[in-house]
């Protein structure tokens, strides 16, 4: 296991370097003069040039790149015009809110999505299955920002049960979590249903039933174990995408996470901050992927000896 982890983590710097390079190229080729933007709309050409020198944007691209990479190594993400300095502490301070939201969404997915899929499979082509499958299609089709708006309008404005925005207590987490988790719940439920149906047809289930286990018991004792393998994979893969989905939901709910900060950074054209946040997203994505692989080995003993 340790060797596996070491190998996995060793690939991170390489991938990150690739991402850093691609990001650098993208940000250097987007239209708009960064120095002119920082200097403001009324700046004269000489003022813009002064800002350019101050930000080091007058240096050759190779030198800018080398400075950028060497800065990242020591945790210096560059000069963010928003925070007048290294944006890293500000990005890190936003991370817990985003992680809490993602964790809550994944938790909700496990609690609702998997049981819903199993129930739908167990009652295949009967009323519970139809209801669940219909809900799944609905949830997949609804964009999360629209669902979020509906939830705010209903739970917060009409019923007054929940705060309509911000992070002012655990209750604030409910609406963004529902909005973010809806699609994932539907995905997991649909996939679980498919896998369970497939497993139920297999020989070991027939054997279990033949030795006298009830259908429910066979399902719980034997089928679920095998269903976990693909389910963990899907939830794990989607967890990375939750970070991206949280951008929209965080903005809608004014949730003080990293996605909200990303949109702010874009709106004030703080390239350094955008780059820093994308970096954090990338690293989080990679770490999540490794975590999924570790988890995978727990639920699938066959891999442990591979």
């Amino acid at each position, binding site marked *: 296991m340790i060797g596996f982890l070491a190998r996995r983590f060793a690939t991170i710097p390489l991938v990150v370097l690739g991402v850093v390079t691609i990001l650098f190229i993208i940000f250097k080729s987007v239209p708009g003069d960064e120095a002119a933007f920082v200097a403001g709309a009324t700046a004269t050409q000489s003022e813009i040039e002064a800002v350019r020198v101050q930000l080091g944007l007058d240096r050759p691209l190779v030198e800018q790149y080398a400075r950028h990479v060497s800065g990242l190594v020591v945790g210096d993400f560059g000069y963010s015009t928003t925070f007048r*300095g290294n944006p890293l502490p500000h990005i890190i301070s936003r991370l817990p809110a985003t992680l809490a939201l993602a964790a809550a969404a994944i938790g909700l997915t496990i609690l609702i999505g998997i049981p819903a899929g199993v129930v739908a499979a167990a009652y295949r082509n009967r009323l519970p299955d139809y209801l669940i499958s219909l809900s799944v299609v609905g949830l997949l089709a609804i964009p999360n920002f629209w669902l979020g708006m509906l939830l705010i309008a209903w739970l917060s404005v009409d019923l007054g049960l929940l705060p309509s925005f911000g992070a002012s207590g655990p209750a604030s987490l409910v609406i963004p979590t529902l909005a973010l988790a809806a699609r994932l719940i539907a995905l997991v439920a649909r996939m679980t249903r498919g896998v369970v149906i497939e497993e139920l047809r297999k020989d070991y289930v027939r054997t279990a039933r033949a030795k006298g286990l009830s259908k429910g018991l066979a399902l719980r004792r034997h089928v679920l174990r095998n269903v976990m393998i693909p389910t963990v994979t899907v939830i794990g893969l989607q967890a990375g995408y939750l970070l991206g989905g949280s951008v929209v939901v965080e903005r*809608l709910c004014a949730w003080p996470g990293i996605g909200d900060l990303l949109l702010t950074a874009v709106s004030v054209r703080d390239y350094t901050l955008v780059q820093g946040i994308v970096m954090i997203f990338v690293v989080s994505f990679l770490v999540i992927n490794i975590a999924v692989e570790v988890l995978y080995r727990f639920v699938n003993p066959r891999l442990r000896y591979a």
Partner: protein
Amino acid sequence: MKRRQFLTGAAGAALISTLPTGAIRAWAQSASGVITFGQSTAVLTLDPAHGAFTGYPGGYEASLLLFDRLLDFDADMKIVPQLAESFAMSEDLKSCELKLRAGVTFHDGTPCDAAAIKFNIERMMNKDINTTNRPLWNPIAGADIVDDKTLVIRTSAPFAQLPNTLAHGSGAIVSPAAIQKSGEAGFAQNPVGAGPYMVEAFNAGQELKLKAFDGYWGDKPGASGVVFKFIAEPATRINAITTGAVDVIDSVPVQLVGQLGGNADVEVVRKPGLRPIGLAINLTRPALADVKVRKALNLAVPVATIAEKVFFGYAKAPDSPLAFDAIGHKTVGETVFDQAQAKSLLAEAGYKAGSDGILEKDGKKLTLSLYVPEGLFPGDVAVAEIVAASLKQVGVDAQITKIEKGAYWDHLRQDKANLAWDLGMFGFNPSNASGTYHLASLFKSNADDNTKPDVWNIGRYRNAEVDALLEKADSAPEEAARMDALGKAQELVWADAPYLWLQINENVSAVRKPVSGVTVMPIVFTNLRAARKA
């Protein structure tokens, strides 16, 4: 099975604990005496220097409560005293003597005396420290202390707008001791001023908590505290004020104002802005150098209808190159929609309809490239589409090019050789409310029309008479003479039609009872300085 049951139970309990357990509305509602302001832009930095208050306008709105300035604008953009009890411009307009208020201290206890003001003026003069708002600060040459309560600010040339600079947001007076303590880099996150409210907690980009400053020299602040919360999404802001989670919101989209209409607790506050939107006309194109063509373009577009239909009446048609509340604004004309007259003017200019209905002259079609940004100005693309359709009705073919907003300024402000547009949507917001500053920024002849424009004369307008009048408007000793010159300049510019003038949008905010005293300034800002909460 036991373990499994336990896990199920634990998960259930965890879920239930996240659910509401009673008086949740109380959480959402702001504390009594504290005003909560849901802002459309985040407060990021609070330093008049180093790029000024960001984001715009959120940072400026917070600065209005945190900092006092030497002078202030009242609701009608008239200049009134603040930290200075009085001021007097010299005869030659090259200096201004200010009498300072006695006994004023900053939030950290430092006295706000002549030495502190001198420190501030010199700090803002320094180009390395203060990188933005340079046109407002460049003319200032220095500050001299006469005595503890008297200060003279000198300019290198006659500068009638000096009081406007001092009243501008960037004229916020900061505590020299706090700069010393936090350093030039750290002040923006640890601001200390002499305003009615002081910082209690600041989390840049999320929330700024202010509390009333007990030692304030003026009237006692109307609330025990003010909290600025960043809520970017308009629908979320409206929901927040509907539920009472916030007391004030800004930037209500005109199409959503209706949602607040039925709510007796919420009052909509509106004020026309200082930024007239228009299409800059590229005068380097031969066809557009003809004033008849430019006038015809203006006659062909139903601006009043745009204001009424696109902006639901929350916009007005202009009557001058300046917005209604700009200092020195004069009504010099009216926006007329008369396509028949537009057609006859175009015919006079020598244009005849071709086989496809598009006008042509000497075999060249009157095809114009219309540049418009996406999301930079209110309803920008929708307005451009209406303009293009209207121009088509008089035989002018306007082709819309949409530009990503980050790159838009680069396209507008170009060398003459690289000007790709014939019509470019633009709006200038004179942050010091000065009409002279506005008109000079847009219509003063460029030193060299071939290079990038000096300021924002992007269409290369050139009228020696206007230049002379603007010079006079800036430097005549008598205010009446300055305003008279500015009025004449507006008449000339309006008659020359270097723009296709469009609408002037209103700034719309909303306030929830029992909060009162919130004003919306023509320059975008929602001002809570005089706000009260019972």
